[in-house]
């Protein structure tokens, strides 16, 4: 509670929390608050020449190239971004933590093997790997989430590894060991709690990276597939119109940047709030 209060005292973190709350509520209540069905192609949603409508009274943010309501598609797109952001990042934090902690705590052969694997993955150009993976598997929502997790766990593993190594060399762990505590007890009771704050921080910052990667894959046409709306694929579908219908790029782009920014701001503030050495130094 104290942490939450300290977090909300920071203006930028508060902004982030508000944006995330709005996005979560919009995604959860999409069925009720979206003004239209996101897939319905309106007859009056296009001009007589067949071009998309600009923002107006009936369609608040305008329509897309098929005459669908952009606002409704953006609201449903929030579901895609958040599901992938949270699931993909959850999986990558889980894999990364297990790999990093096991490698850092056991060392020896398994540790070395795991870290060589991490080094190998670090040398892959992340986006290129994601593109190749997405092209191999026919992308659905869950496949895209998995592809992103396969690419993003590496960073987490590196951080967890170095933190675990430095923690297990500290005096209090040595003291525990000399008192005869088992390895399992040392790991769970003494090392894991110290890692928790890093996991929370990277669990939040990572959602931002994940949201951006999902949008990029969808923009390239190999992420979430239309007609399921995603902020990235809305831009992908409509980009040929960007000169005459800029709102079709501007609004989804704004949505992506704002959500990614919100998770970055909250994650960065969490880092400062949770770090005991930073106390009192805003």
């Amino acid at each position, binding site marked *: 509670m104290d942490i939450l209060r300290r977090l909300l005292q920071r203006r930028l973190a508060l902004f982030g929390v508000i944006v995330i709350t709005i996005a979560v509520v919009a995604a959860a209540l999409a069925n009720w608050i979206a003004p239209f069905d996101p897939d319905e192609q309106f007859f009056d949603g296009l001009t007589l020449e067949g071009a998309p409508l600009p923002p107006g009274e009936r369609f608040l943010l305008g329509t897309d190239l098929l005459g669908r309501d952009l606002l409704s598609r953006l609201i449903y797109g929030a579901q895609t971004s958040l599901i992938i952001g949270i699931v993909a990042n959850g999986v990558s934090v889980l894999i990364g933590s297990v790999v990093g902690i096991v490698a850092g705590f056991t060392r020896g052969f398994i540790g070395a093997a795991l870290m060589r694997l991490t080094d190998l993955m670090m*040398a892959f*150009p992340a986006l*290129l790997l994601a593109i190749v993976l997405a092209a191999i598997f026919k992308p659905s929502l869950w496949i895209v989430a998995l592809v992103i997790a396969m690419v993003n766990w590496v960073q987490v593993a590196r951080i967890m590894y170095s933190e675990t190594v430095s923690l297990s060399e500290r005096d209090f762990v040595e003291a525990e060991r000399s008192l005869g505590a088992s390895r399992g007890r040392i790991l769970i009771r003494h090392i894991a709690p110290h890692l928790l704050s890093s996991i929370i921080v990277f669990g939040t910052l990572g959602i931002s990276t994940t949201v951006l990667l999902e949008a990029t894959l969808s923009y390239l046409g190999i992420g979430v597939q239309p007609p399921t709306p995603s902020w990235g694929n809305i831009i992908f579908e409509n980009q040929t119109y960007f000169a005459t219908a800029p709102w079709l790029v501007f609004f989804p782009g704004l949505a992506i*940047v704002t959500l990614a920014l919100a998770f970055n701001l909250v994650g960065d503030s969490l880092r400062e709030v949770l770090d005991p050495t930073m106390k009192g130094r805003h």
Partner: protein
Amino acid sequence: MAAYLARRLTESMLILIGITFVTYALLYLVPADPVRQIAGRSATAETVESIRRQLGLDLPFYQQYWRYLTSLLQGDLGRSYIQRSEVSELILARLPASLLLMAAAIFAELVMGLTMGIISAVRRNSATDQTLMVISFIGVSAPQFVVGILLLYVFSVQLGWFPIGGYGTPSHLVLPALTLGIMGAGWYSRMMRSSMLNVLGQDFVRTARAKGLSKVRVVLRHAVPNALLPIIAMIGIDIGIFMSGIVVVESVFGWPGIGQLAWQAIQRVDIPIIMAVTLVAAFFIVMGNLLADIIALFIDPRIKLK
């Protein structure tokens, strides 16, 4: 030092071989059949099979990979399935454009990022500082395709200052380099700010101030050069990040580099090109990291060789 270098280079070599194995295995799993792509729709079953034999794609996986690896170690990247030319020629023809783009992006991100970081640190906790740090956060939260398309809309479509895409003159370079550099500018401004704050609090800066030097001189001659040291090593790591970014930026701006080559190859399952671009990108990433470590070593002699 020589032993350290030799060990790092051997490790890098092994990592690159590991990369070829993983990529080859992944591409082996691709359900789309490259032979069908080459033969075309009207090809008979016999033609398809003869092409498959010719390319060695009928062999079991480990034999295929062994063939690939042995010819790679002899410097042969293979032939493109679709473009009917040597992959090494295609890469060499495209690489200069990508390197030019990356060099310009590094320049752009350093100029933007370092300036913002220095101003923020000097005006610590002021409104200027807070505004600049919010801008830097927006920079790292903006995906490149959105930045690229918006820059195109404003500066090419509306203002007509720059061409809509393509390659050739310096004005073609400005928008793609900015797009690729904006995210890095965000990171650099934050790192430069904290590095500057660290340096500004040290004794030699106080001495310089006490000597009566002007504030500008203290900052530019004494603080900035010292604050830059930890930042320089990061440039090596940027190269790796850019290797991903160029796929998007080159596709938005129609920039004829290896990112575009890779993207076209992935869509057509042109496996030799995908392999080669991944390998080239990994090579730059590994070398960039190595370079970063070596620079850090020269800058800070306290770092021990492990």
